[in-house]
């Protein structure tokens, strides 16, 4: 099932299937320079904060996500799988590439429906 993910920093939205990680689907936006990192929960570069929505997770390294992070929804996008539409903020090293260009509201990508 497809869910819509909103990047609050930019207003950008993208589609993400329930069996697909937030990072894998974000990478399909084709934004240049997204540091996808290890994609295995070990390196921490793709850290996001889930602001709202339901999701499941797979194991990720405590070096980058401690109990306080987990309680606050600060997680690694490569290990988070949406169970509903959700909103996130970019907090890790991803921030530079995702939010580096200020885009006018009119250019916000419409949600993908398939």
């Amino acid at each position, binding site marked *: 099932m497809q869910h819509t993910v909103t990047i609050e920093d930019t207003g950008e939205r993208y589609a993400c299937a329930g069996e697909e990680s937030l990072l894998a689907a974000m990478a399909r936006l084709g934004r240049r*320079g997204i*540091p*996808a*990192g*290890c*994609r*295995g*929960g*070990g*390196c921490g*570069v793709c850290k996001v904060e889930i602001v709202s929505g339901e999701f499941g997770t*797979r*194991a*990720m*390294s*405590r*070096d980058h996500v401690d109990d306080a992070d987990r309680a606050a929804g600060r997680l690694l996008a490569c290990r988070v799988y949406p169970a509903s539409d959700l909103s996130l903020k970019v907090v890790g*090293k991803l921030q530079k590439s995702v939010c580096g260009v200020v885009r006018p509201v009119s250019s916000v990508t419409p949600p993908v429906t398939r």
Partner: protein
Amino acid sequence: MAMTGVLRPGHAQVRVLDLEESVRFYRDVLGLVETGRDAQGRVYFKCWDERDHHSYVIRESDRAGIDFLGFRVLDKANLDRLEAGLKAYGIATERIPAGEMLETGERVRFTLPSGHVMELYAEKTKVGNGIPLVNPAPWSLQREHGIGPVRLDHALLYGPNVAEVQKIFTEVLGFYLVERVLTPDGNANAAIWLSCGQKVHDIAFAEYPEPGKLHHCSFLMESWEQVLRAGDIMSMNTVPVDIGPTRHGVTRGCTIYAWDPSGNRFETFFGGHLPYPDYETMTWTFDNFGQGLDYPQRKLHETFLTVVS
């Protein structure tokens, strides 16, 4: 060349987030040979052509990264000599009893100023490579499983105090500096490649603020074509690839960097030049680091500098 001290990196112990998923990856995709499991839950692997019981050990943990890297030394006399040298240099050592790791003798453990735990050992059971020692065939069927590297070749570790680490390896452990990359101001080394024999490197370090980080463990392939085949197998299994296939300027080795299921980077590596201890060190200026990393593309990939476990 007579090698009478440290012989080679003989084992790495790496932390994984999901043990069985990682066992499937290392056994079936990378194509290592599983040789044992112990009471701590660790799983032991070797590459098909290695003779010793294991070279790569994984254990489940809530964080990725490397526990320690162990070097095989020639014999117990050299183990004692090298430990005495470390102590005289001012480095604390401890002895890990024989058998704590399967089929392995006593180990001398110490911590580098980069935060990495190193070990030296002189004994590990030789289980062979599946080929007879008399009239041996050139390879066995174990090679034809997954990527199938020949051996654990080297590791690149990220941490602080690389200048101090270099002194320990060259002044105490008998290594020599093969290549280096200078810092942007040219006054220090940003990264160093060290050899204890005639391999282009047995271990490498890069300066990094966080201690004890793993950049990659490297596995040796027999040819450039085998590196390309490794890339095919990675893609067939949707293994996340970082860089390559390409050729490093530093070492001249052919490479693919990719990540295991827990975000520990590994390398499939082939080639490299063959240095001797009397050769002069080769130096790369920081503005040529891109060529050093990826010679054809001349590109200093950002992930090389920022993504570690």
